[in-house]
């Protein structure tokens, strides 16, 4: 083991049926260090964490812990705990109806008897030492989310952990709460605990971390000391583009010039919603394809949800074709000619048990009204038309949509919105998790729609794809619009600089 390391993982491999989730990944955590684990979705962060905590059993490689001779074998979360590895998850996994002290000691008392007085006293000591503003006898549910998060950490600390894993701990906290949490993390660091910090927030990484390990597509990209890795480099590493390679590949599509624009189809001013995005301005013009870009969790989806009325708006105005409109719920947006393909296909898109036909006609049917159902023949005709048009592979239009492949499900949802003949179509991650052939079909379709004079907002995690389709990009960081790029600015390096913020690329 390296000098000063508390944890060393070497050559970790993990396979799932048909997928290589982790390939030869090394990871080293040193004593008294906060180490960020970065990567886009599917990069292998959570698999690595799960291997470390015994949720998954590794298929190859070795794990070493300080104070243990030779490699350790972690086969269950219990093993991990006993080895001094504690995890605090994004979702609070404590019991809100128990007291703080009970939560800290639950499942850890030996035998059938519990000395509550001792436990409350001990819990009080820990809370004080970590300066957590909670009383041992207070009900956990009455504490703020941040304090609950801290109690979870305190529980982990008291289990004398050497390694503390924080998996997206800040995603539901506000700025002040994040600050408190960081203070606690720094205290623990000073006590010699090694902390693995998983987050999507770049700013936070640069605020507290000492080192960064970047994963991409199940493989290790590298381990870096934070000072050596400027933000834009980090983004490049996560996305898999070396800065030198980032030539401008755009050019085959005519740039959208401000002169042809005319009146915007939809214009939003200082729109904000309950999902917690900062008020933003937005406009889209006839025949334009624009996009929101930014890292996952930067607020791209929340912006379009606000436009469509999927989240309740808390302020701002929306104009459609120059007239002010009020969109309170999705139906309002639909009636104005807006369609929305949601990011999470399974949760928000498909209605799994219903047939392909019913899924296709759903939106148009709702717009037509409760008392005017389509006849079976009409519905069949619509479904068959779009099954053919989009080449949806399904046994019949009666097949439940859930038995289709991901790409075909996505095409059904697309068909649903195309059937409503929208003026403005919002596509949030329409190509995620689907095969490359379908991806290209969808990209072509988007450009075709624009050529027909429809407006499209396209969101994708793949910048290549955005560059191929969009003529204008709105860049988001930490739930805020931080820039708008168009024309010659539409190049990978420029986009990544804007996503990363702060520093310049060179």
């Amino acid at each position: 083991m390296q000098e000063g390391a508390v944890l060393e993982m070497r050559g970790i491999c993990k396979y799932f049926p048909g997928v290589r989730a982790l390939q030869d990944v090394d990871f080293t955590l040193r004593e008294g260090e906060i180490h960020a684990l970065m990567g886009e979705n599917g990069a292998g962060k959570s698999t690595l964490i799960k291997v470390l905590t015994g949720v998954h059993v590794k298929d190859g490689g070795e794990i070493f812990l300080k104070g243990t001779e030779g490699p350790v074998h972690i086969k269950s979360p219990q093993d991990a705990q006993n080895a001094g590895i504690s995890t605090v998850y994004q979702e609070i996994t404590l019991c809100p109806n128990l007291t703080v002290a009970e939560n800290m000691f639950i499942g850890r008392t030996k035998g059938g008897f519990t000395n509550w007085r001792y436990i409350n006293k001990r819990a009080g000591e820990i809370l004080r030492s970590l300066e957590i503003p909670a009383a041992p006898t207070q009900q956990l549910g009455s504490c703020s989310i941040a304090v609950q998060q801290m109690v979870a950490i305190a529980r982990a600390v008291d289990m004398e952990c050497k390694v503390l894993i924080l998996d997206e701990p800040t995603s539901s906290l506000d700025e002040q709460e994040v600050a408190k949490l960081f203070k606690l993390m720094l205290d623990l660091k000073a006590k010699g605990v090694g902390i693995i910090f998983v987050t999507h927030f770049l700013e936070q990484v640069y605020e507290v971390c000492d080192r960064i390990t970047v994963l991409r597509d199940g493989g290790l990209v590298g381990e870096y000391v934070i000072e050596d890795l400027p933000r834009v480099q980090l983004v490049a590493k996560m996305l898999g583009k070396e800065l030198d390679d980032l030539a401008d590949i755009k050019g085959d599509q005519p740039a959208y010039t401000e002169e042809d624009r005319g009146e915007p189809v939809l214009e939003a001013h200082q729109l904000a919603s309950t999902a917690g995005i900062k008020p933003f301005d937005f406009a889209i013009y006839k025949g334009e394809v624009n996009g929101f870009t930014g890292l996952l969790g930067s607020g791209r989806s929340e912006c379009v949800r606000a436009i469509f009325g999927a989240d309740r708006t808390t302020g701002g105005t929306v104009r459609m074709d120059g007239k002010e409109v009020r969109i309170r719920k999705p139906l309002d947006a639909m009636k104005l000619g807006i369609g929305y393909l949601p990011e999470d296909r399974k949760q928000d898109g498909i209605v799994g048990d219903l047939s392909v036909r019913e899924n296709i006609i759903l939106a148009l049917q709702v717009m037509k009204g409760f008392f005017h159902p389509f006849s079976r023949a009409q519905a069949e005709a619509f479904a068959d038309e779009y099954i053919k048009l989009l080449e949806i592979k399904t046994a019949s239009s009666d097949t439940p949509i859930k038995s289709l492949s991901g790409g075909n499900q996505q095409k059904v949802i697309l068909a649903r919105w195309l059937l409503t003949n929208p003026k403005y179509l919002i596509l949030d991650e329409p190509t995620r998790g689907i095969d490359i052939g379908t991806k290209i079909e969808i990209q072509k379709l988007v450009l075709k729609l624009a050529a027909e004079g429809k407006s499209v907002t396209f969101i994708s995690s793949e910048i290549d794809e955005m560059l191929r389709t969009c003529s204008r990009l709105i860049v988001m960081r930490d739930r805020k619009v931080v820039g708008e790029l168009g024309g010659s600015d539409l190049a990978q390096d420029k986009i990544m600089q804007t996503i990363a913020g702060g520093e310049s690329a060179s």
Partner: protein
Amino acid sequence: MSSVKTSLKEKKGLKGTLLGLVRQQIFIPIAALLLLVLFNLIVDPSFFAISLSENSAGDPVLSGYLITILDNASELAILAIGMTLVTAASGGQDISVGATIAIAGSVVLRVLCGTNSRPETLQAPIIVAFLVCCVVAMLFGAFNGVLVAYFKIQPMVATLILYTAGRSIAAWINNNELPIISEPSFGYFGNFIPGIPVPTPVFIAIACMVVIALALKFTNLGLYSQSVGINPHSSRLNGIDPAFIKFITYVILGLCVAVAGFIKVSRFSTINYSVVAKDIEMDAILAVALGGNALSGGKFNMGASILGAYVIQFLTTTLFKFNVDSSALPAYKAVVVILLVVLSAPVAREKLSNFWKKLAPAKAAKEAN
């Protein structure tokens, strides 16, 4: 689903049809019904005899087990309609229907009797009493609906309130009196209309079925409630208001309760708050389950639910017929119920259809030899 297609293509003819039937949702209640029919036919062929005779008032009436079953299952079939919708949209069940039937019945009697519990003449036209009862029952349905849809309380917990309090409310409506109506025309709705030999509840149940069939055909009630039950998030993003759809299914169930309660009080022209429609909620939920509908909501088959209601009454009457020892009656019912529910589980159906598939090649091989 695609496997159904292929298997159907592979084996056309009787085997294929049977296999297709096994996969159909309505297969379970039909199988249960056939099983009961077969059992009764073997033990006592006269079970299915129907005769035309006169009742004590001198009017012609049809009698026989089948008529008894059709008659007595009416309320349950009507409730199964509403319960199916509630189950589909809210993914839970209303356990207060028995208690709200007591309320609905009590309201009918209160309107007809006024303050006098033994009136010589009716104090209001029967149609007025029925309409008032509908309004009240729908209000109570709306109360449940608001709790479930807008306060997001689990349906069973939300309806527990009326389940506990309903019968007391029913008693309070009539000042704890047990009114009796002597006007014979009121009894027509739960018994026979003079000159018509088929029990009136059968007609009322058919009318309800026609109404719901029309509603499902000419509105989007079916599509919306299933969509909301399967995936409320995507339903919302497609412009459906999931809370309102849930709410409306409870109001519809309230209407079903009103009709069922009206038949119940008409049967004897009186009411007993503590026992009227006792445990009927469980039978109604069972009818939905027997129809092969998931109690967790989503897709439903209305016909199968209604058929389920008749199967339950068939079972009850069969058990009465065979004079099953009174204390053992619930146990028998439970055994049958367990069998039917297990049979309706997707796992069991998968096994069953695999069994058919295995049977088919074996037969074919034999024939070839």
